[in-house]
């Protein structure tokens, strides 16, 4: 062994030691911003998402949360599950409230993460205008939608995010109609069309979720992440199933993990390997689906997944 390679080895070793120390320090500093004691249902997917958002965002963050499950379960006066400064004002305005916070911080010359959190109702439906406006104004904030595919807090009513054929209390299964008639709104693409960073995430792929939050927070201006958050009650699944169902959603291609950055699509995991029936049959909200309907869902999923994959392969700037 010559002197040079020995030096190199020692240097590498030193670096590795330093890195281990850094990781250890980071672990020691690991911060929990959304803590136990909240009133979310056992096995709630959204609560898992909250914990990871708060943990990755860290202490130097302000949360603007929309009315909905996560607000209701975490802020019962005089208790709070948040160790981060948090404001809730109404249902449709998480992004508008965040805009005000962003402006105030700019005036105070403070560099703090501003994170707006809303469910799919507060994002796809009633919160859409405020979200679109805030992005158009180039406000510096990250909007995270915990997508449980219906109005769960009010007792499972259909939203613009609810997939076709889903049974909800306002799209019930009957002799004539089999659940919701319409397909799910393609929200991450709609947001991406504003020209900002937009991504999907899953609580079954945590390192990917963490990386996306970190990446988004480092980008100046508006950012959007939609995280699938299974609702045990609304989806009629076992309390222990949220993670597994989330994983199946990615593996069946129903909820692919992708990013749109600088107008270009990137499919993070091309792992669509299972038929949608495996995902659908695990959930009570889809139990009424017949073979024809399952085939229809499969066709739609193949079509959308194929399009995302194509865009990802071609690397064309679409927005």
């Amino acid at each position: 062994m010559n002197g040079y390679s020995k030096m190199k080895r020692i240097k590498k070793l030193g670096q590795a030691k330093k890195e281990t120390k850094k990781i250890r320090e980071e672990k020691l500093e690991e911060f929990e911003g959304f803590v136990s004691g909240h009133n979310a249902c056992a096995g709630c997917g959204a609560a898992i998402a909250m914990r990871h958002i708060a943990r990755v965002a860290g202490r130097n963050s302000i949360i603007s949360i929309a009315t909905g499950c996560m607000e209701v379960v975490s802020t019962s006066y005089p208790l709070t599950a948040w160790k981060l400064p948090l404001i809730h004002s109404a249902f449709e305005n998480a992004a508008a409230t965040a805009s005000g916070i962003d402006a105030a911080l700019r005036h105070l010359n403070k560099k703090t993460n501003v994170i707006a959190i809303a469910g799919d109702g507060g994002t796809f439906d009633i919160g859409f205008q405020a979200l679109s406006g805030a992005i158009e104004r180039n406000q510096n904030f990250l909007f995270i939608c915990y997508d449980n595919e219906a109005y769960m807090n009010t007792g499972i009513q259909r939203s613009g995010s609810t997939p076709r054929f889903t049974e909800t209390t306002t799209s019930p299964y009957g002799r004539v109609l089999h659940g919701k008639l319409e397909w799910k709104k393609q929200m991450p693409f709609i947001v991406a069309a504003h020209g900002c960073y937009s991504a999907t995430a899953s609580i079954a792929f945590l390192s990917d979720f963490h990386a996306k939050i970190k990446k988004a927070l480092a980008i100046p201006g508006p950012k959007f992440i939609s995280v699938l958050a299974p609702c045990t009650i609304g989806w009629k699944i076992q309390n222990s199933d949220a993670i597994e169902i989330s994983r199946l959603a990615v593996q069946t291609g129903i909820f692919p993990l992708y990013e749109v950055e600088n107008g270009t699509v990137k499919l993070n995991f091309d792992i669509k390997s299972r038929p949608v029936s495996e995902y659908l049959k695990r959930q009570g909200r889809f139990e009424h689906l017949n073979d024809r309907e399952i085939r229809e869902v499969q066709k739609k999923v193949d079509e959308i997944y194929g399009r995302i994959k194509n865009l990802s392969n071609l690397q064309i700037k679409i927005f």
Partner: protein
Amino acid sequence: MQIKSGRAGNKDARKMIECSEAIAEATALCKPAVVATYPITPQTHIVEMLAKMHSEGRVNSEIINVESEHSAMSACIGAEACGVRTFTASSSQGIALMSEMLFIASGMRLPIVMAVANRALSAPINIWNDHSDTMAQRDAGWLQFYCENAQEAYDSIIQAYKISEQKDIMLPSMVCVDGFTLSHLWEPVKMLSQADVDSFLPVYNPLYKLDSEIPVTMGALAYPNTYMHFKKQQQDAMLNAVEVIKKTNLEFGKRFSRIYGNGMIETYKIEDAKEAIVAMGSVCSTARIVIDRLRQKGRKIGLIKIRAFRPFPNEELKKIAGKIEKIAVIDRAISLGNSGPLFIEIKATLPKSHINNFIVGLGGRDISENIIESIVKKIGQKQEIEWVF
């Protein structure tokens, strides 16, 4: 020290200015950190002026050009929660759209100040003045000031910040001017300097704010065991505001030689009056002219101007109403199915007086001296509520 009325005063330092611009100038002197702007007639000139001042570097505020009035108030709530001063302005449908957030701003005890150019509500759509927009927000928990002229609007903005931001009040304020009739009126206004306002209005520093150093949860969910306590505290704060409004008015008067009655109400020739007109806003100036004319003919009539509609001047009215036999309440709004909203309140405060209600000037219909005279002729008549077209 003698304090002159808002309409008198030193003519030397006056500037000919549109009322909307006067409001924008006063706002700039209060140095709000965040201003949310959204256009709606007849308020638009106010935010246009602020945007212009911002582009010229005259104000240091962050301007957010929101996409709706709902978001305007939401943005003010978010910013004010960070512990900074905010401002917005609106009218009519805009006030109706942000109504949800008005209740939340006061419930969260955020002392936002909003200028309102009062305008009729749809339908039928109408862009002209009446008070139906802010009367519909009577119970929103905002302090409401109705101004008679541009000078009062200018002064009231500065007073509103001081009143709202008091620790035992912490409630938002609306400073209302009659749309077009006043908002677009050019008048001589005596301007204050930055040093004047800085010495009058302390720096805003709330007890609680969104700060990553000291995390707090704002806008929590209150169960039935606590909700009522929050509302009681809001009501207590509203009632505290009565004395603070009076004190602030007096302090303002002592410093800048302009005073508006006792802050809650302003009276004109009421000392020996047997009859009184009760009104709000710009119509009071017309009433003063008519009263002068009738006084020359020997009629003992005076004016009670309601300056603060919320909190309502109950005690102040009771104090002066003793000798007044007949009252005419002029309402520029109608609570459909009952009577004018101001009349309902006055009647509840003065149950023993003979009070007539006149519904006038809806949707910008002109209120001329002739109309006021015809109202005065009908004071004391049997018919309680009358629409004067």
